[in-house]
């Protein structure tokens, strides 16, 4: 297997608040990695560092063999890194279909019919086709999350970063989402998934890392990680002495 992503000793701080502290890990091509950690642990900042929205203070990020540390967000997107935002960031004045077209034309670099066909396909897969002509600003939270996933997929990513995409969904919606993500994964896309809905995560990922205060505090096979007392205390708030 080849390495698709590698973080080497990446650090980032805002004043007294450290969001990434000597963070290192790698991801194999086609692997699905889950990320756990309490709110404010620096998980979303880690995504910002990988996508180029944030520049690290120190460290190196390699994607598909290239050092991308100095590249901007747009270049990284075009090279195959796509993400969904935890707080959805739709283009509110554009329709759902046009939102998808932005990804297909600008990131995936498609044009004309080819771009349109991809968007229709993905919208069908993410169950947004009925809303294709709706303005994105008027969507419900669930549909905004679906739109996040849609846009990320229309970018034809090699690496897909999902940020709490299952939060706030009903059980049935969650089950459908898991099936979608599994099929994306099966098509060969590498995935890093930040999620609080642990059972959803466990259904898809092959490996877990746990982050707190910007540091990687555990890494390994999902079941073993979830059973470790340290993780239980930090992540679930269950106190070791309680």
């Amino acid at each position, binding site marked *: 297997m080849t390495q698709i992503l590698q973080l080497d000793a990446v650090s980032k701080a805002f004043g007294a608040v450290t969001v990434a502290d000597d963070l290192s890990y790698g991801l194999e091509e086609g692997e699905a990695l889950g990320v756990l950690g309490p709110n404010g642990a620096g998980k979303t900042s880690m995504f910002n560092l990988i996508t180029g*929205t944030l520049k690290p203070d120190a460290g190196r990020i390699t994607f598909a063999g290239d050092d991308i540390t100095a590249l901007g967000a747009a270049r990284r*997107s075009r090279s195959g890194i796509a993400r969904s*935002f935890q707080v959805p960031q*739709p283009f509110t004045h*554009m329709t759902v279909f*046009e939102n998808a*077209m932005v990804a297909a*034309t600008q990131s995936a670099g498609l044009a004309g019919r080819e771009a349109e*066909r991809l968007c*229709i396909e993905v919208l069908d897969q993410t169950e947004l086709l009925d809303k294709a002509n709706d303005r994105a600003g008027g969507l419900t939270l669930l549909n905004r999350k679906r739109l996040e996933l849609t846009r990320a997929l229309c970018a034809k990513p090699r690496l897909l970063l999902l940020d709490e995409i299952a939060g706030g969904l009903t059980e049935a919606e969650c089950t459908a989402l898991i099936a979608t993500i599994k099929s994306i994964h099966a098509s060969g896309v590498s995935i890093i998934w930040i999620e609080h809905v642990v059972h959803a995560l466990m259904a898809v990922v092959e490996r877990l890392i746990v982050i707190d205060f910007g540091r990687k505090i555990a890494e390994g096979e999902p079941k073993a990680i979830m059973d470790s007392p340290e993780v239980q205390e930090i992540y679930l708030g269950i106190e070791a002495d309680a």
Partner: protein
Amino acid sequence: MSTDIRISRTSNAAKVAAVLGALIVVILIAAPYWAGRADLRLMGEIFLYLALASLWNLLAGYAGLVSVGQQAYVGFGGYMLFALTIFSGLPPLVAIALAGLLGALISIPVAALIFRLRGAYFAIGTWVMAEVFRLVFAQVSALGGGSGTSLPTDIVRSMADGRSAREALSYWLALGAALIVVTAVYLLLRSRKGLALTAIRDNELASASLGIDIWRTKFFVYVVTSGLTAIVGALIFLQKLRISPDAAFSVNDWTAFVIFIVVIGGIGTIEGPIIGTIVFFLLRETLADLGTIYLMVLGLVAIVVMLKAPQGVWGFIRHRFDLQLFPLGYRVERSKDS
């Protein structure tokens, strides 16, 4: 399953508008044969203002680059027309095209500097650049220094035989400039780059994450707009036949009025500048006798529109009737049997 789905980029209203528009264009092309000399001059001025307004709208309404210094390129274009025809002996039409090219070129270092400023400071930075242009041209004594110069009569004569032929040519150039600018803006906004611009306007964070290089996109729009503005500037002073630093780089004439036009008509729409130009000239032709009062009324109307109806006249119409004469979007249509 996607066979019964098609993507449409037009609407019935737009088709009707296109036919009507083509008809109006034909009538306007024929204007030298039916309009009087004064009307022709006025219409020429209207088209040049329409071109300026459409360009400023592209810059501010779509690329978010709120410039109050576009007079820099109007004046630059005007001076280039004079300099290239007087010093290099180029035919005026070639000089006009070259003025556009040079305007685009000079806007590159300007952009590199003022793109360091954000928001409203960018706006005033553009004004400083326009002042620099004005002061520099005022130093060129070969072009009349601070008091300016006239276009030599032999150059004017070289354009066409006879006064009415020259005035018709000047009119057609103005009409052509307006048509080219509006069409160019429309095609740009329908293109892949236009989609990027619209996305940036909505959400910069998401745009960057979807592969859009925000700086480059804005830079591209700034350079293209500046070049086209310089061409319009050259045409403006081809009409006036006389240029001076104060007239060429007037913030009121080439920027304040243009901004008022766009805002009153509806910023961020292609239709807005067209409506705004009509409103502006209606106001001017009815109130011009009032002098300074007219300008105060204009300022007041712009303020009231911005505060009470920031989408302008066209924004109001579009909202009310769901109308778009220049369709930019995509509609997904599914056949009934799906």
